[in-house]
């Protein structure tokens, strides 16, 4: 069974756009709503693309801004200017 990579954010206006971007870019994404927070599970590999987040927000976005809203992550992280990727190899 493929392990889930996941990310959780505080629920706010910015993360609403980020979660929408994740859902667009990860067809297998499952969004779990919890009190005050939102968690997104994706089997194997979860990608957040800067371009998609910018489109949703209607402004420039630096992927490091994610840090302001992050609650937790699961998976090995690889971050560049354009993509924030969480993945499990198994």
């Amino acid at each position, binding site marked *: 069974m493929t392990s889930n990579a996941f990310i959780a954010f505080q629920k706010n206006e910015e993360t609403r756009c980020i979660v929408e971007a994740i859902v667009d870019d990860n067809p297998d994404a499952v969004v779990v709503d919890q009190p*005050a927070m939102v968690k997104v599970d994706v089997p194997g590999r979860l990608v957040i693309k800067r371009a998609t987040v910018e489109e949703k927000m209607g402004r420039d976005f630096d992927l490091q801004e994610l840090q302001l809203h*992050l609650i937790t992550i699961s998976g090995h992280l690889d971050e560049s200017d354009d993509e924030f990727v969480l993945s499990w190899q198994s």
Partner: protein
Amino acid sequence: MDMKVSKKLGLKERYTMMTRDLAWDTTFQPMDKVFPQVGYEGIKIHDWDQWEDPFRLTMDAYWKYQAEKERKLYAILDAFNQNNGHLSVTDARYMNVLKLFLGSTPPLELMAARGFSMVARQMVGAGPRVACMMQSVDEYRHFQTQIHSISNYNRFYNGMDEFAHQQSRMWYLSDGKSFFDDAITAGPFEFMVAIGFAFEYVLTNILFVPFISGAAYNGDMAAMTVGFSAQSDEARHMTLGLECIKFMLEQDPDNLPIVQRWIDKWTWRGTRKLASVGMMMDYMLPKRIMSFKEAWEIYFEQNGSALFNDLARYGVKVPKCFAQTIEEKEHITHQSWIGFYMKPDACPFHTWIPAPDELDWLSEKYPNTFDKYYRPVLEHFDKQEKAGNRFNNKTQPMNCQVCVSTIKFNEPGDPMEMCFRETVYKGEKFHFCSDHCKEIFEDEPEKYVQTFISSHAALQGKCEPEGTDVNAHDYRPGARMHAYWRMDKRASGDFNGSEDQKNFAQWRDQATKN
């Protein structure tokens, strides 16, 4: 005239230039003399440059984002306090969560800050040094903001003001203290596994995610904003712990058995520490959102399995205690709450028997164990309490020599039997809560014979308030524990009838009428 504008550096280049490029090798003294600690544990490192912080966070970006987090946090804290926020929590029982949290968590954050500044000095590579330094500053921030957010409650409710004094003296705070004492007195790599992996990956995911999400739905915006703000740093901390484990395993195959032993040891120590966090979720939040069992399944069983399956390519095996923790998830929170209820004179927070609808919730969430083992005990205590015969255990607890939890958990496979182990070392007998703790002791007995256990030391006359004459003919060891602990008696015992309960009801009433 044409101006050539140089392109802004990318994240990877910026990270390289701002960390590794600013580091240097010492020449007046050889490197192994400047950084001796990395060799003590037997971990072999061949190329420190292979370590890279996957967040690629540079110091300038760190300050920018941390400052923004602080601004958000204090905006919410100020608004909450200006709005008399403490009266908007679900009910006054909730304050006891904060009391337990205050005693158990901020002092550990401070220990983590100390530990990471030490490790930041001890590590050779620039990557881990910068990341450890940032984590040290983060932990200091958590320590301060947690105390700051709860200080507003301290103006209104009893039992919060002596948490710093109590941290190294109270029997039930000793498990967390011993966790960090053990980690900080290990070498730098073991510290990274203990805190970066076990504490961050196993513990904080439960403490700061479902528990803080619960605080939010109990109306406590102060704890919510502090918890989430801290956890936004924890994502970085978990990544650092995981990176450290991968780095050790990739550097040399000889590192595997050492790393495996640390994973076994610290997963177990982290699990033991979680019993009281789980109890807060199952018993102390008036509005419950998720049981400890459910949180454990998501954040440890599934998330932990993902990690261990992934690390299997390096030869890492699932920690030995994994199966036992799965069995225990249906028991430990009930055993802990019953344990605290039975000691009304010895905790600076209140306890209570859950209301009938709350017992029903527990029955539903724990279908295999609650009705069979724990509900009858709680209902019996309730009857006795109402008949004026409130149970009160006045003896000192017996604590495990390794994890310093009170010895109260059950024998694996037999919930009706208490688990108890002992071993003899140099003619002295030592006691343990489990096979795992016994094994940890036997691996490093000279370390664990030194464990300070206040409930045992008290019987030797070592835990007395100043001015006590332990040689007086009428001296009784442990008789003045309340003074030694600086316990506020108004804060202990039953919630029903307490000053906090009365004050909260009166203030809430005043807040809605003229």
